[in-house]
């Protein structure tokens, strides 16, 4: 369904030579499958995600191909890309504290895409937003729909973020470090929701994390990245059990002992 | 090309404006005149008399007598009068059937009230000093008023023609400042403070009605804005255009009538005669000779103005030309200064009101003084507030510069105290002779002697008489060309057919 072919991204800089942050990455993703992308910060994971959804900063240039059901997204016009975003690809961001507009009620933020892209009436969009809040397991959704982001906890906000991404029923969900900023106890809940969505709705999911534990929980396949390049890519089980590269091994070793234990247990 | 664009550009917004305006916004009998200073109150018998008089005198308020456009005393609310042999008793016959704007009749009772109010102990009339020779006021019958003086005062009749002595009635006297009630041909419609006073013809006027329906005084301090208002037709008359340098362009323009009239304002650089070195008459003479008055007038007033040698302006009937007394002669000035004991000159503080004409004149005087080795350090003084306090009340100054606008005000040099701190028995005697003169010739002779004493003693440096640069719409008739009294008498102004 999604195929990225030797994607290169370079950033132009003021008064300095351009810098290449993605050095030819390729990947494929089947419908209903989950791909984990793992790597330390600065490895180009987020840039990869942003290139797919076409939200790279202005000074970035992407080369290669990003094929969504055969269409090269890199060649699409801004208007064409707008139809892809939200409807075909939804995205969840890392920082629930900053990823929501602080001056807008969460219900409105969820409904906005529905109103603009689907032309739903205010009332219908609200009903749909309420359903989505239920879907991401926000308790008392009827009351919370009129809350502002600052009135919610981090976990709740991230659920709202998921609801926003789901609103237009995309085929592909990109979750960029969705749990990194959250407490450990909250992390599990978010990951459960993501897992349920993939299972119930048949979504494809790209899950980006620096945390192998997170990847291990959900991903069928895993792509390990380092400094803008692919280190290895294979079934998650294989990557974790028989890391093909020293770098992958250091990532596994860097995991907390307890997490590694769960990993072992899961593998067993 | 540009001209055509300008024309188009001009007409475009005007057409839009006219379309939006109600018709007949401009009535035929309407005149707007410009005045640079807005009066504090509209009653010329209290507070600042000059600006209040310029708006209301003759238009709203009338006196027992009036000063006409030629400076003559003419009957007004008094039809005629007799003066006793000893010149101490004045008997006026008052005009019958005169009423105030509020319907109150004018008679000897109101006249008595008006005069007594001027000289009362708690009077707040700024010109009170001119009338204090009046010892008693009697009203033997409704049409007769008798004034008894404590000593002869030959100018009294003249003073009675002044804005400060207009007739008011008891019921409205206290509110005349904001809601003036007089006997004149116009009554107040509205005073938009900071902007304009609108007056309209009053149908109860005792005399011939004024040709105009509405007159408006517009207060525009900035000379450039005055000129612009004239050019754009927002005002019709500027009887004293503030910008002499713009006068020439109006003179060339057939749309306007212009007139260089004589005014009563004398610009003088007063000195503190009680303070060294200005207590030395030779120093004062030397300073006078250091000044080229023609060059000064050229620079400050674009050449419009007359050099003066004493305190009267050529507008005065008693004027005598004394500019030859101490003419421009820097060599002689330097010599005289050395003779006075200042061979290397001296330094002094020049306290100058922050008004354009004063600042500009001071800068030029400074340059002239420098030529004879005298250094003038100019200190700006906030006018009127600080200036009146420092110079006038406290006489804490060396030299200053100011225009004296009141006609026949040469008597200020005899006053004690007055800011010049000038004291001359000869001058006081001359003023006494003026007061007691029994005929016009003797009076004139005394006035001339007074001027000569001043021209020789130079308690102040006599610089120039301000011209009255009048500009008005060429279609207007009856505007006063000269200014024997600071006034905007609109009672005879009319649009020509």
């Amino acid at each position: 369904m999604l195929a990225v072919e030797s994607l290169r991204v370079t950033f132009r800089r003021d008064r300095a030579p351009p810098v290449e942050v993605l050095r030819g990455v390729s990947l494929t993703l089947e419908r209903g499958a989950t791909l984990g992308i793992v790597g330390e910060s600065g490895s180009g994971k987020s840039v990869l995600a942003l290139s797919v959804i076409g939200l790279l900063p202005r000074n970035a240039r992407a080369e290669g191909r990003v094929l969504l059901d055969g269409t090269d997204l890199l060649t699409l016009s801004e208007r064409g890309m707008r139809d892809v975003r939200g409807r075909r690809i939804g995205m969840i961001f890392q920082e629930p504290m900053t990823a929501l507009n602080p001056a807008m009620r969460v219900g409105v933020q969820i409904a906005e895409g529905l109103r603009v892209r689907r032309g739903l009436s205010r009332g219908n969009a609200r009903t749909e937003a309420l359903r989505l809040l239920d879907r991401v397991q926000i308790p008392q959704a009827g009351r919370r729909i009129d809350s502002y982001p600052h009135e919610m906890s981090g976990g709740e906000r991230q659920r709202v973020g998921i609801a926003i991404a789901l609103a237009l029923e995309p085929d592909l969900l990109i979750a960029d470090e969705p749990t990194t900023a959250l407490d450990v106890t909250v992390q599990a809940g978010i990951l459960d929701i993501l897992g349920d969505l993939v299972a119930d709705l048949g979504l494809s999911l790209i899950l980006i994390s620096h945390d192998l534990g997170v990847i291990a929980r959900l991903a069928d396949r895993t792509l390990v990245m380092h400094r803008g390049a692919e280190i290895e890519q294979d079934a998650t089980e294989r990557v974790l059990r028989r890391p093909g590269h020293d770098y992958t091994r250091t990532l596994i070793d860097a995991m907390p002992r307890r997490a590694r234990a769960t990993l072992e247990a899961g593998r067993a | 090309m540009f001209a055509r664009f300008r024309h188009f550009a001009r007409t475009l917004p005007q057409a839009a404006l006219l379309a939006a305006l109600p018709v007949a916004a401009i009535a035929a009998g309407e005149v707007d005149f410009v005045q640079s200073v807005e009066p504090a109150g509209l009653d010329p018998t209290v507070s600042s008399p000059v600006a209040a008089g310029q708006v209301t005198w003759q238009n709203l308020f009338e006196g027992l007598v009036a000063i006409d456009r030629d400076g003559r005393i003419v009957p007004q609310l008094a039809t005629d009068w007799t003066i006793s042999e000893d010149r101490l008793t004045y008997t006026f016959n008052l005009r019958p059937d005169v009423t105030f704007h509020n319907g109150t009749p004018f008679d000897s009772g109101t006249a008595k009230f008006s005069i007594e109010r001027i000289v009362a102990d708690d009077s707040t009339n700024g010109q009170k000093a001119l009338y204090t020779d009046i010892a008693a006021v009697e009203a033997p019958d409704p049409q007769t008023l008798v004034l008894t003086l404590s000593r002869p005062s030959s100018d009294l009749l003249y003073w009675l023609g002044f804005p400060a002595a207009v007739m008011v009635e008891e019921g409205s006297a206290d509110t005349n400042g904001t809601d003036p009630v007089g006997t004149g041909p116009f009554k107040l419609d509205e005073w938009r403070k900071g902007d304009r006073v609108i007056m309209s013809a009053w149908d109860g006027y005792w005399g011939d009605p004024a040709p105009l329906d509405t007159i408006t005084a517009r207060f525009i301090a900035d000379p450039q804005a005055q000129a612009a208002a004239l050019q754009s037709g927002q005002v019709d008359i500027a009887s004293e255009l503030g910008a002499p340098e713009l006068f020439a362009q109006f003179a060339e323009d057939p749309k306007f009538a212009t007139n260089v009239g004589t005014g009563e304002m004398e610009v003088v650089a007063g000195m503190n005669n009680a303070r060294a070195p200005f207590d030395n008459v030779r120093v004062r003479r030397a300073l006078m000779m250091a000044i080229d008055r023609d060059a000064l007038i050229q620079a400050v007033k674009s050449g419009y103005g007359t050099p003066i040698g004493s305190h009267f302006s050529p507008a005065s009937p008693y004027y005598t030309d004394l500019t030859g007394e101490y003419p421009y002669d820097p060599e002689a000035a330097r010599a005289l200064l050395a003779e006075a004991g200042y061979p290397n000159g001296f330094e002094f503080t020049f306290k100058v009101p922050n008004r354009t004409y004063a600042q500009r004149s001071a800068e030029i005087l400074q340059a002239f003084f420098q030529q004879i080795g005298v250094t003038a350090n100019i200190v700006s003084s906030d006018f009127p507030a600080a200036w009146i306090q420092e110079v006038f009340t406290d006489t804490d100054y060396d030299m200053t510069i100011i225009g004296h606008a009141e006609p026949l005000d040469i008597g200020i040099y005899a006053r004690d105290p007055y800011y010049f701190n000038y004291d001359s028995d000869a001058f006081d005697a001359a003023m006494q002779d003026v007061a007691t003169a029994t005929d016009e010739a003797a009076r004139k002779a005394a006035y001339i002697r007074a001027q000569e004493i001043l021209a020789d003693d130079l308690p102040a440096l006599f610089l120039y008489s301000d011209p009255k640069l009048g500009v008005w719409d060429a279609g207007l008739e009856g505007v006063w060309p000269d200014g024997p009294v600071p006034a905007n008498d609109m009672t005879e102004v009319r649009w020509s057919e």
Partner: protein
Amino acid sequence: MRKLRYLGRRLAGLLGILGIASLAIFLLIEAAPGDPAQIMLGTGAQPDTVAALRAELGLDRPLPLRYLAWLGGVFTGDLGMSYTYGTPVAELIGQRLVVTLPLTAMATLLAVAVALPLGVMAAQNPNRIVDSLATAFSQIGIAVPNFWIGLLLILGVSLGLGWFPTGGFPGWRAGALPALSALVLPAIALAIPQAAVLTRVTRAAVIEVSNEDFIRTARAKGLSRRRALWRHTVPNALLPVVTMLGLQIPFLISGAVLVENVFTLPGIGTLAYQALSQRDLIVVQNVVLFFAVIVLGVNLLVDALYILLDPRLRGSG
């Protein structure tokens, strides 16, 4: 609730500041040389006449009594009578306000109308021509004195093109159009420096908000750049703009004093200047206090607006 208490505290502090300010104003003006009675009577008056007028104006009463009388009057809404005009000060201020208020309002609206789109466009197109123009405009606009702009407008537009009067104010009774056209040029002169400051703030704020994560979230929903800008970026960028509007009030008033002077408008700035040179003390006191109230009041209003614009400050419940 918490916010209400906060605003209440602000209001109390504001009253305290106004109290100190009123005393400072009063003492400053009293200490200035110049006697209103003497000024009103002119140079021809004798000392006894001056004394009579002083008594009539109540200027012979002791200083503390006059201060308390003034303050008491202010609280009961009686601002006293102008010495020189002889009319109630409140009426005088009211008459001038109908010029200054529309003038400053027009200038502010104009400044916002120019600065907001310009700042947003510049922020959206960094290093493009629009951006360079906006940067140049904001730098130059801050640097040029508004009274000079006024003079240039008179020179070019009034005298040159013949559009709009060179000065003066016909009054609202002359009709809305002539009155407004008398205010157009002064408002432009007053607006340009304001617009320059606001353009700069808007541009910086929009750039800053554009880099926020939630803008990316909005775009990821499939919103157009334009919709994300106006629905998400601009509302959040308004806070610093509104703050700057509040901080600019003292400068706006200062500018009005100068611009009214250039265009000979009978506004409240001219009144202050005129009354001071006449030592119409009671008018000066009230006008200056009035300005202080406006400055502080607007800043309180800005605080309230903040709460309206930023739900985070509203407190829950």
